């Protein structure tokens, strides 16, 4: 049924327009990043010089290091907190389950500004002040609901009889976890980790509140840079972040289905 009437054509045209809107800044960044003459569009050639400059900048490299460590540790912690909780929620039905689920999702419901401010004030209050720990805590707590969501979904697909079988032949709970449960939900774990990592890697609001001096994550470093100049080196850095996000998107989508993961 390929009836092409005016309504469908208008709908298609409008969708195209919106897609152009969504892709516009991303495309512009990538084009500026490989264009030899700064900002002169349309592009007049191809160069990786800006990427070289971006990837040899000490500030950016340090920011990248910080973001990398932060992303890996926060994603690991978030999954470590979310996995047992997800297992308890999937395997049991009890009164107040909905409430606990809502509580576990609460970091997503609080505006990021207020969540970050609250953590900042709290760490000052308990006498810790600013440091790496608040930054790490902020990232971990904020991405944990996403981990919980993916892991819950993949645990739903796990047939409990596998685990029962393992326990029947004498495997302990730890043994069962490592030789049955984790391998079976492997794809869920990988995509949960990838999503947590990319959310932490790209985060700006939490980092800008909580990052201590000397531990500036890459997005905050990029923000500080483009506040004063937005040359093609910044484009190359932004371009690198876009490419990395694209890779993560493909991985998450292949393993868990991106849409299910992002649904708010």
């Amino acid at each position, binding site marked *: 049924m390929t009836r092409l009437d005016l309504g469908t054509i208008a709908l298609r045209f409008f969708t195209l327009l919106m*897609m152009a809107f969504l892709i516009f800044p991303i495309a512009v960044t990538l084009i500026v990043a490989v264009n030899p003459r700064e900002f002169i569009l349309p592009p007049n050639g191809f160069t990786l010089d800006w990427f070289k400059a971006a990837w040899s900048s000490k500030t950016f490299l340090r920011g990248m290091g910080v973001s990398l460590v932060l992303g890996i540790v926060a994603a690991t912690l978030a999954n470590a907190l979310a996995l047992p909780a997800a297992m308890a929620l999937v395997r049991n039905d009890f009164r107040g389950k909905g409430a606990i689920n809502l509580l576990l999702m609460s970091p997503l419901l609080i*505006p990021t500004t207020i969540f970050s401010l609250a953590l900042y004030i709290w760490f000052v209050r308990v006498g810790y002040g600013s440091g790496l720990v608040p930054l790490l805590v902020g990232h971990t707590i904020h991405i944990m609901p996403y981990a919980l969501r993916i892991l819950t979904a993949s645990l739903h697909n796990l047939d409990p009889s596998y685990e029962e079988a393992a326990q029947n032949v004498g495997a302990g709970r730890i043994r069962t976890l490592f030789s049955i449960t984790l391998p079976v939900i492997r794809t869920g774990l990988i995509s949960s980790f990838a999503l947590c990592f990319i959310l932490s890697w790209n985060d*700006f609001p939490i980092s800008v509140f909580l990052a201590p001096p000397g531990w500036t994550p890459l*997005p905050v470093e990029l923000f500080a840079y483009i506040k004063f100049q937005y040359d093609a080196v910044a484009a190359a850095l932004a371009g690198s972040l876009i490419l990395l996000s694209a890779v993560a998107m493909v991985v998450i*989508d292949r393993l868990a289905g991106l849409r299910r993961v992002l*649904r708010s």
Partner: protein
Amino acid sequence: MIRRLLPPLAPALIALLIFVALPMLWVLRTSFNELGDGAYVVEAMTLDNYIRFLGDPWYLVNTLWFSIRIAVVATAISVICAYPVALYIVKTTGLQRNILMALIMAPLLIGLVTLVYGWIVIFRGGGLLNSLMIALHVYDRPVRYMWDIKGVVILLVYIGAPYVVLSLLDSLERLNPFLVEAARNVGASRWTAFWKVVFPMTMPGLYAALVIVFSLNFSAFAVPLMIGNSNTQMIGLIIYREALLNNDLPFASALSVIMVAVNALILVGMAALFGRIILNRLEAKR
């Protein structure tokens, strides 16, 4: 039951208690404190921080009311832009659908600062947008987007629209296509079929989208920080500035409490409105 459930749930719940619940309560407490000389927080029980904001017409008009208006406008534009897209996507399949979905979700995963870089290139005085608009004869001299409210709204729509598309798709995919067919068969025009069948069924998705996107816009601080100017003092931005630049934690806390309260009030109003709309639809059907 408790003995079996508590060990796996405890780490996450304790983490949330220590790092979300208690800090939020501490924000409430801090909002009654004072700022002493040398920007130290002094324990107190005063409403000064609230009075400073709520008693000042400048703050009320240029910050609170301004944030509400911007959030409403940006949310409305997001919905208007996203609705047709969702209607189109739900009919696509295969590769076309995958590409469209990837484009919709890309802005959600790519960091805000990264996206803002591209927007700066587009917005700049003689930038791409102005060149394009002038070439299309929409207007004949450059318009200001960067450091301007127009840029802020465009960016908020850019961030909000994908959320709206995703929520609407959830509703649209649940819609039985035979309902539309049936309406068309009994003589409804395309337009009538949309208003009488499709639109009411997307109410839950629309409501979810409004809640998310309005809250996101109302509390926005990164966007006005990066491309706004002195006339775009949204409440989230003021919180950021008072907390981090002026180190006035009590005032920033009071602003946070006000922001959450106003946001909650608006969401309650929205819930009542939508509850009534959905109820009315049910009544009408009977």
